[in-house]
């Protein structure tokens, strides 16, 4: 084949080659965010406050201690994890789809030296950033609320590590979300992942009740395939210092398992989503 000839098959699955231009795409999104910061920021403070208030203070009054802690201390770290999940997932499904499909923003950007892979990676990093912003807001609310609870909601300055955790956890959810976006033919499609993936995780990953109260098989399943379980393990460890003994494992073992799970899954879905999007956008 002479130079200039094409590989017959469309681009194969590959590790994306990325440059600093990823951050140009990220910058575009953050510029839009700051333009609309009032609508983005303040309403998102309300939701975690409602959860803490309704479940923590309200419902919590009827619930005995869980693993030696008041109920509100059990759910507070989970709310941070849920904010990571929802922030990244929304951004890289609905919001990315609007930019890609309705606004044709990606089409405009790929006519510049920025590549398709970089556009998608920029979106993923932005999804992770959005998760970080949302989680930080919740973290702030939790820390403040902790001033009025019998046991503070954050046990040590380690809780600040939840901010970088939010970025990496956010990157995982953003990447998973982007895989759905690559497959979406219209915006209603996102009802499937929202109701079949997010909502079950919201209830079944040890958010509002301990995973340990479920059968061992269910615990195993949650550890094997539900990413939120691992993010909650990490936020629990950072905020209150202990994780419930899922599958009978100790806090440090769980933390190790969850870290490995998160890193592996993030790498896998990051690469997968970029490849799927590239296929969708260029063939």
């Amino acid at each position, binding site marked *: 084949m002479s130079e*200039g*000839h*094409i590989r017959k098959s469309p681009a194969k699955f590959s590790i994306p080659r990325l440059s600093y231009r990823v951050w140009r795409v990220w910058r575009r999104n953050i*510029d839009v965010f700051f333009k609309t910061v009032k609508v983005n920021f303040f309403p998102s403070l309300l939701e975690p406050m409602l959860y803490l208030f309704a479940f923590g203070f309200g419902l919590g009054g009827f619930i005995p201690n869980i693993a030696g802690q008041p109920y509100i201390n059990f759910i507070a770290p989970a709310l941070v994890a849920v904010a990571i999940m929802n922030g990244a997932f929304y951004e890289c499904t609905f919001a990315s789809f609007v930019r890609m499909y309705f*606004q*044709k923003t990606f*089409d*405009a*950007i790929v006519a510049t030296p*920025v590549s398709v892979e970089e556009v998608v990676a920029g979106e993923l990093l932005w999804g992770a950033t959005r998760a970080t912003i949302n989680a930080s807001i919740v973290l702030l609310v939790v820390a403040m609320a902790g001033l009025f609870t019998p046991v503070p909601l954050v046990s040590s300055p380690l809780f600040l590590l939840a901010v970088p955790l939010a970025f990496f956890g956010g990157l995982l959810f953003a990447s998973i979300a982007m895989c759905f976006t690559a497959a979406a033919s219209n915006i209603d499609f996102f009802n499937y992942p929202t109701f079949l993936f997010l909502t079950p995780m919201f209830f079944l990953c040890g958010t509002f009740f301990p995973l340990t109260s479920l059968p061992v098989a269910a615990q195993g399943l949650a550890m094997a395939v539900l990413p939120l379980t691992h993010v909650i393990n990490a936020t629990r460890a950072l905020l209150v210092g202990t994780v419930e003994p899922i599958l009978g494992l100790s806090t440090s073992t769980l933390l190790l398992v969850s870290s490995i799970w998160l890193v592996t899954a993030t790498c896998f879905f990051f690469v997968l989503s970029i490849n799927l999007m590239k296929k969708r956008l260029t063939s």
Partner: protein
Amino acid sequence: MMDMSSSEVLIEASGLTKKFGEFVAVDHIDFEVHRGECVGFLGPNGAGKTTTVRMMYCFLMPTSGVLKVAGLSVNTSCREIKALVGVAQQEDNLDPDFSVIKNLTVYARYFDIPKAEALKRAEELLRFFQLEEKRDVSIMALSTGMKRRLIFARALLNKPQILLLDEPTTGLDPQARHLVWDEVRLLKKQQVTVILTTHYMDEAQILCDRILIVDQGKIIEQGTPADLIKKHVGTEVLEMDYDQKLMPLLKEAFGEARMERLGERIQIFTDQPHGVFEGFLNEHKLQNVSIRNANIEDVFLKLTGRGLRET
């Protein structure tokens, strides 16, 4: 007209093909574009114009064949190619989340143009395209014509050597079209190479040094507008209402000339010097007659057997 043989080939396609599944959108086309030329792809909707242009800036990968832009292969040198090329896409893909000026400055960032320089170029372009008053308004507040001009302006931010304009005037009123045409002429003077797609015959004829007529993924003819017209339809066209009784008269007067019946009208083409029709008209008093210069539309009609806008 420029001397093609001595000038540098900037875009080169051979056997260029694009399939979507089994459907062949671009079918083994060959063409060359030289530096400083304005080349028009003229063809009906669905002919494959956009697909061809999209391959030139790596938006789509060719299925097979060779495509080189500025000597670089679209398979291996996308980044370099895209730095040299300015693209005004067919659809409106301005960023509705930003104001007019911010659309330009954000776009300049993708080309690594420093902030101060980007702002300077953006202001210049807004002036050039008569959009200064809209500088700070939202994209939503622009008319179709203004949006097209802003897309055109955005394509010039990186001072491209090659400009790809995909239907730059579709949907514009005559005034806005003329504004776009003026800008294309100005860029040609600055030796920018322009690729233009259109389904407007007059536009192709007026702006382009060379026209490639495309239909169903193939280039069916190419040449300068004047050569194409001369080769296929001649110099002048006589048009009148069709009337059975006139036919023998016409046959006698124009003998070999090609005649086409289009519904209730009849067209007679001649390659004779101007004036052959006048004599005939002086002899016979006819209603609804016109003599006009042959144009690209006649060429297209002859080559494809149908009008451009019917498809």
